[in-house]
């Protein structure tokens, strides 16, 4: 008998995933694990395949080859609604908010099962994003860019998903709103496993525990965020910052 602990089982696991969109080979063998409870950030330049990776996980792009597992079960080939109902929430780059529906209707649509937990989630959402309560009966199209972004994230969070995929939440937001977003994401990451695609390195470093750098549809580097923050050469090489 040994005292060695078994390695933590990943909640989300991609093995050698390839996708094609039209003639283009977009993901070229993506492999990474996300551990439960550890917020993970996908970094990389524009066109590296970050957003495509999230869209592939939720079934919006068909997998050409490779395996995607969620809580040990293979999910590639499932339809997006089946993947969502297994417990993966997704907020796309454009927020995915329904502009012609009210804030309340956006939530009602997302809430496919009303439980005590979802009610608690809603209360948490109102604490994190008080504007959403204030504009509860307002059409989402009339909200500001920041409020729409909050709604997009909050809506995915309401369902008690085990994993929440969030694509570039800071895109187009003023610095003060990015600051507020960071605070909110840090609270959300305590309640679910967040996988974040983010160009804003400051926000990414505030939220993430682990990171994967993507380039040309492949993972080219991975590690813990605290190490990357100080690694100027790596940041310069792959992210163009430093």
């Amino acid at each position: 008998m040994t005292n060695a602990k078994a390695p933590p089982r990943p909640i989300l696991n991609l093995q050698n995933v390839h996708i094609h969109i039209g003639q283009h080979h977009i993901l070229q063998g993506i492999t990474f694990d996300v551990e439960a409870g550890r917020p993970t950030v996908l970094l990389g330049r524009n066109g590296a395949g970050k957003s495509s990776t999230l869209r592939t996980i939720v079934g919006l792009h068909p997998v050409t080859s490779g395996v995607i597992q969620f809580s040990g079960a293979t999910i590639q080939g499932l339809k997006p609604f089946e993947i969502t109902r297994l417990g993966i929430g997704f907020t796309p780059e454009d927020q995915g908010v329904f502009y012609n529906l009210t804030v309340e209707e956006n939530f009602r649509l997302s809430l496919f099962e009303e439980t005590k937990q979802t009610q608690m989630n809603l209360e948490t959402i109102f604490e994190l994003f008080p504007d959403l309560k204030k504009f509860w009966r307002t059409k989402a199209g009339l909200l500001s860019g920041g409020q729409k972004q909050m709604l997009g994230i909050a809506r995915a969070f309401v369902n008690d998903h085990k994993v929440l995929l969030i694509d570039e939440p800071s895109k187009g937001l003023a610095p003060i709103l990015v600051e507020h977003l960071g605070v909110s994401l840090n609270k959300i990451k305590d309640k679910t496993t967040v996988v974040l695609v983010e160009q804003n390195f400051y926000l990414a470093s505030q939220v993430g525990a682990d990171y994967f750098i993507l380039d040309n549809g492949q993972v080219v580097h991975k590690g813990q965020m605290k190490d990357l923050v100080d690694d100027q050469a790596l940041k310069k090489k792959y992210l163009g910052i430093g």
Partner: protein
Amino acid sequence: MLGILFVPLVWIKLTPYLVLTTAGLAFGMFLFMVASGMTIIFGLMDILNLAHGALFAIGAYLGGYQILNLLNTLGWVENGTAGQSMVSLLLAISMGAVGGALVGFILERLILRRVYGDHLKQIMITIGVLYVITELIKILWKPTAEPVLVPLSLQGSYDVFDVIIGKFRLMAIIVGVAMFAGIQLVLNRTKLGLIIRAGVENREMVQVAGYNIGRIFTVVFMAGAALAGIGGTMWCIFQQQVTPEIGLDNLIFALIVVIIGGMGSVTGSFLGAIIVGLSFNYAAFLWPKLALGINILIMATILLIRPRGLMGKE
């Protein structure tokens, strides 16, 4: 805006104007019954379904012709009581709706599912389906016009201060308004309606929100087809005859209404149907040969001012 409705009074005396207005409203409601399903199907599914005319014809033959003939053998239609007349109409409408929905189900599952997102193929295939069903109707029933019975208590007309209002026209207005109210109720007060409204805006996100969009498409297509079936039933009873070409004949009006209203908008179709119904009746009274041309002119004018129709969204 509403003032435009009174312009025909310049040429038409008050009493015939009121008669034409009630007749125009009834015609508008018939048109709405055809157009509503077409616009819902386009709005959610982005399908240009020209086979909608065939679903209209199916409703006419199954509901208006077949069921009323059957019920007449029981003495419920031409000799029945007021209650039997109403039940006969209700059963005819129900059968028209079920017939339309079932054919719609087969059409969506077997054919249209393969051409989602390709308007050119949709137009070609659905026109083909329209002609095939029209020919099948000739084989299953008769290639010639057949008389359709009108339930006894819906025959004749009311005389309200010299304004003659046909009983069945009045019924058409009631059914049309009830359909509009029902559709609004479903769209605005139910979860299905919420999903449909969201799906019109962003189908992908509806899937990601956890809903089986494929199943919702089928349900919506069947509902749209059922509305066409109801329209067909009501129209053939009003016309007191049914022909295999009934769907083809009404398709042009349905398209005008859907385009005027704004593709995908039920409220737009409701308004468009009233505009087309009224203008057609006024024009048919004043310049009979120009009636259809005036409707097309109205459509062109509205599209010049609002390229996406009255209620169409960018």
